[in-house]
């Protein structure tokens, strides 16, 4: 249980460990993109941790990173093909960022730091905790940027009609601003 909850708050991958910055900043132009990316990462993280934890005893120490990378790449490609086949809209919106999950350091980081040293049960709860933590982090980032950048949330208009969208919020600079503020808020709460 502790393995699960630490990823959600105390060791939050985005706001506390500052891992996986590339997807966090790049895809969160809308809340929906944030959730889709988060779900894809949960899937990859869960199955990679599962496999890595199962084969930890037979993988030679010298080639462990290569083996983990092959495993992660396999699951990422499966997600990519699945989205292209079933959800072409989401696949188009996320574009090249899905294949880039391969180099998302949260996944390799959790495989190396946790799944390869712990039993299956703890590894899976750790993966799910980190995955859901990443997911809500991206959803929050995406929501804030979408609300101020376009005046809507999940595609539904919520700001008054005369609201003038702050374009900077959906540009890369907005991503850094919102992330910085959220990290500051997290630090303040934890103090």
């Amino acid at each position, binding site marked *: 249980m502790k393995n699960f909850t630490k990823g959600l708050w105390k060791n939050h991958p985005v706001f506390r460990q500052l891992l996986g910055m590339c997807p966090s900043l790049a895809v969160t*132009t809308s809340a929906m993109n944030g959730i889709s990316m988060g779900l894809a990462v949960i899937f990859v993280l869960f199955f990679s941790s599962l496999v890595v934890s199962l*084969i930890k005893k*037979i*993988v*030679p120490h*010298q*080639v462990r990173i*290569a*083996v983990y990378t*092959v*495993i992660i*790449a*396999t699951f990422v*490609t*499966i997600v990519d*093909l*699945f989205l*292209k*086949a*079933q959800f*072409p809209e989401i696949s*188009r919106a996320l*574009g*090249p960022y899905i294949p880039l999950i391969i180099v998302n350091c949260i996944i390799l980081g959790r495989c190396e730091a946790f799944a390869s040293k712990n039993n299956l049960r703890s590894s899976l709860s750790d993966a799910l905790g980190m995955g859901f933590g990443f997911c809500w982090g991206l959803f929050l980032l995406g929501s804030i940027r979408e609300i101020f950048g376009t005046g809507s949330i999940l595609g539904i208009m919520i700001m008054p009609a005369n609201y003038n969208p702050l*374009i900077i919020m*959906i*540009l890369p600079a907005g991503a850094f601003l919102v992330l910085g503020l959220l990290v500051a808020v997290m630090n303040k709460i934890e103090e």
Partner: protein
Amino acid sequence: MKEVIRITSVLTLVCIICGLLLAVVYGLANEKIEINKEKRIEEALTILAPEAINVEELTIETETIYKLSNQKRNLIGYGFIASGQGYQGKIKMLVVTDKLLEYIKGIEVVESLETPGLGAKIQKDPFKNQFRNLSITKDIICIKNDTPKESQIKAITGATVSSRAVVNTLNKRIKRIREILNKN
């Protein structure tokens, strides 16, 4: 020596298993992906030429051209795919022209990897609508300032590369399609 064999065999085994798994998933997904791509082109055709009831797919000199005709089976124009290098990756568009290749009826981006918020605006109306009824008797020119005149397109602010890529791809492609259609 024993160690080398162990390392090599584990790595090979992992790669083989992953490869097989991917082959299976690819086999299951590929058909659906191809259907989705075709559907996207069909959708784009309906948007650009709603009056085209009959669409005939021609293959001339390895190029695919959609011959569009209305209810009375009169030829109203041609549709074809134009793709070229954009800022981050390939831009693939569907173009619909009149039957004499004198003007473009419209373009629709079917695939692109341009920057969200900047280059991705090539898919949005303000940019796309500039191509509606655009004369193509001369090459299209992409301009940065001023109001665009005949055969001119105003580039998206902050995404000149993407805008130029669209225009250049179109010019090249229209030339080629014109050659093919004149010959046949």
